[in-house]
């Protein structure tokens, strides 16, 4: 029943069977061969053993030359294992009796073999399981054929344990509807995988450092995303506690689901627009299911970071068009590429910067890499006839950047016109307010933009001068800091004096604690991860605008983050007892 602590990135509790994803994703598909081919498959097995043995022998020799012969001994042992006739015989029997393919027979045998180690007490278990895995991988590599695990082919519900998960792996897993939860060695609350997990309401704990070495496939694990805890093989009592908690959350969720088709409207009839934040077009369905009335933030970096080459205009166009079509007329705010900082494209010609978050990132990068920027704008414009597409520039810190970006947009418009493309000529242009500079000059920016969207993650980091992933100062990062709240209120006020609509799309929008306050400040559009929409709606429907304004006035009089948090917690609990 060991308990491991990490960072909970997505609330929710789940108990289930673990599937440990190996770095190479090896899982062999079940394949059969005609009976007249079994001799051939057996031969393949013999060859794979011989080749693997020769290879490992070479490695042993290589390591034997170096100091400290531990590795040489390990390989020496593998070499002998591969030279043993018994495994080959048993694998050959499997092929003859069951007509398995060579690769599948090897994996079946190895899995059974490995299972026998699970009965062993440590330290033998771990050391040997690793050895066997290593031998298995080597054999499978030599036997050839299909050995890549298709994540999409999961056939039972599992909790995924991995060193790390990429956002696309996560989305792929989610699509199988077999993903109960996940835990990873690396990661933090701001990693994109974490953000998506929260959006999809998949319980997850990250930053566990070495969880993959503590869990084996088949173990029962509890993922408590709320407290950032993973329990391995829970005892009766733990099981009961967590099952009860999971059921309670399930009920809460069911209640919220009933709200889906209701408006996000305060008790005194003020309608609030709730939108979803997404990274991949695939997530749109989930947003709509949770009650989003459009997408307020479509991050486009995935297009640039997924492959090692830049996406063509056509590929981008297709992604934007698909998203627009899925939304069927609902708004889709596309944020232009927010590269730099911690998101660098391998071919982008990046230089090491001393301070990447104060460096060439986001709109600054776009304005210095015009061909890339232009192709993205062309793709967005071309897709604009397929729905209500709007374009948004990130991290603008001075009005000149907005003017330059709009100039590029207008030249692209002319170009498309000449080429005879159809597009929406009055495509709304928005600016993300993510720096104190932009917040302070919001009035001027608002005059030249159709909408402003407050991006709180960066705004907080730049206002408080805190990197929240830095564990030595991370606790200083807080949306509730009075300086941050004053900046947000100022943007809402200044924006309100222009035609521009102001919305908020940072993580703060989805935090139950701040809903009442944000409404009180005057915000009428909030964009958040899909998973947070139902409860936000519930809170909105439980309060009146007069309440919200009262709360806001009170909060603005506080001097410390602590007072703000305590007060908001009390006020929110009055209408949302599950906080």
């Amino acid at each position: 029943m060991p308990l491991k602590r990490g960072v909970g990135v997505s609330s929710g509790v789940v108990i289930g069977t673990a599937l440990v994803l190996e770095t190479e994703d090896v899982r062999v598909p079940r394949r059969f061969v005609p009976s007249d081919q079994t001799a051939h498959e057996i031969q393949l097995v013999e060859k794979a053993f011989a080749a693997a043995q020769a290879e490992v022998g070479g490695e042993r020799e290589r390591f034997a030359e170096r100091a400290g012969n531990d590795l040489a001994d390990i390989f020496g042992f593998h070499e002998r294992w591969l030279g043993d006739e018994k495994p080959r015989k048993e694998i050959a029997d499997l092929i003859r009796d069951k007509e398995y393919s060579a690769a599948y027979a090897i994996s079946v045998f190895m899995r059974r073999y490995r299972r026998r180690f699970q009965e062993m007490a440590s330290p033998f278990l771990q050391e040997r399981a690793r050895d066997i895995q290593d031998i298995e991988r080597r054999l499978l590599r030599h036997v050839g054929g299909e050995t890549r695990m298709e994540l999409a082919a999961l056939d039972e519900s599992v909790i995924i344990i991995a060193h790390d998960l990429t956002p696309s792996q996560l989305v792929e897993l989610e699509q199988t509807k077999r993903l109960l939860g996940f835990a990873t060695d690396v990661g933090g609350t701001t990693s994109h995988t974490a953000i998506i997990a929260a959006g999809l309401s998949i319980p997850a704990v990250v930053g566990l450092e070495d969880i993959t070495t503590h869990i084996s496939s088949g173990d029962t694990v509890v993922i408590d995303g709320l407290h950032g805890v993973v329990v391995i093989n829970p005892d009766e009592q733990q099981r009961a506690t967590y099952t009860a908690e999971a059921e309670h959350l399930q009920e809460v969720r069911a209640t919220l689901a009933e709200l889906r088709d209701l408006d996000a409207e305060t008790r005194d009839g003020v309608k609030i627009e709730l939108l979803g934040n997404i990274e991949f077009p695939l997530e749109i369905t989930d947003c709509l299911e949770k009650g989003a009335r459009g997408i307020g933030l479509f991050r486009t970096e995935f297009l640039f970071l997924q492959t090692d080459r830049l996406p063509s205009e056509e590929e981008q166009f297709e992604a934007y068009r698909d998203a627009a079509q899925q939304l069927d007329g609902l708004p889709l705010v596309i944020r232009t590429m927010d590269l730099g900082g911690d998101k660098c494209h391998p071919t982008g010609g990046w230089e090491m910067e001393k301070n990447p978050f104060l460096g060439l990132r986001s709109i600054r990068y776009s304005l210095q890499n015009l061909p890339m920027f232009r192709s993205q704008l062309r793709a967005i414009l071309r897709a604009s006839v397929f729905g209500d597409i709007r374009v948004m520039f990130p991290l603008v810190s001075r009005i000149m950047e907005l003017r330059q970006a709009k100039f590029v947009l207008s030249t692209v418009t002319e170009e498309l016109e000449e080429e005879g493309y159809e597009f929406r000529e009055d495509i709304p242009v928005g600016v993300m307010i993510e720096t104190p500079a932009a917040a302070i000059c919001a009035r001027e920016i608002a005059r030249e933009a159709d909408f402003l969207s407050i991006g709180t993650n960066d705004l907080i980091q730049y206002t408080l001068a805190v990197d929240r992933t830095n564990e030595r100062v991370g606790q200083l990062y807080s949306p509730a800091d009075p300086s941050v709240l004053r900046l947000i209120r100022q943007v809402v006020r200044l924006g309100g004096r222009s035609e521009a609509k102001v919305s908020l799309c940072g993580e703060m929008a989805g935090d139950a604690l701040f809903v009442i306050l944000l409404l009180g400040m005057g915000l009428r559009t909030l964009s958040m991860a899909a998973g947070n929409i139902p409860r936000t709606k519930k809170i909105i429907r439980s309060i009146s605008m007069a309440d919200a304004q009262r709360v806001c006035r009170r909060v603005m009089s506080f001097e410390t983050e602590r007072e703000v948090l305590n007060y908001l917690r009390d006020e929110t609990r009055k209408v949302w007892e599950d906080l």
Partner: protein
Amino acid sequence: MQDDESCRQIEVEIVNPQGLHARPVMRFIDIAAQFKSSIRIHKGDMSVDGKSPMEMMLLEGVQGTILKLEACGDDAAQALDKLAELVRDGFGEM
């Protein structure tokens, strides 16, 4: 166990702190392979082939574990001498 008269048995204790990990298994197998006799190792009600690395890996032997070595064949006595000596010496790891 074979009831052949040429079978011999001996009990030995694992004495090295690390127990029967990869390197000791390897040494054991290398010695066992030098003899024609079949070699089995019994631990409680479990029994494995002393010449098969695959089976030997399944044998969980921490320090203090008693193993019963059994050899059957013409050179059984010599085989047991050598193997028992290896185990008693802590597989050369002490």
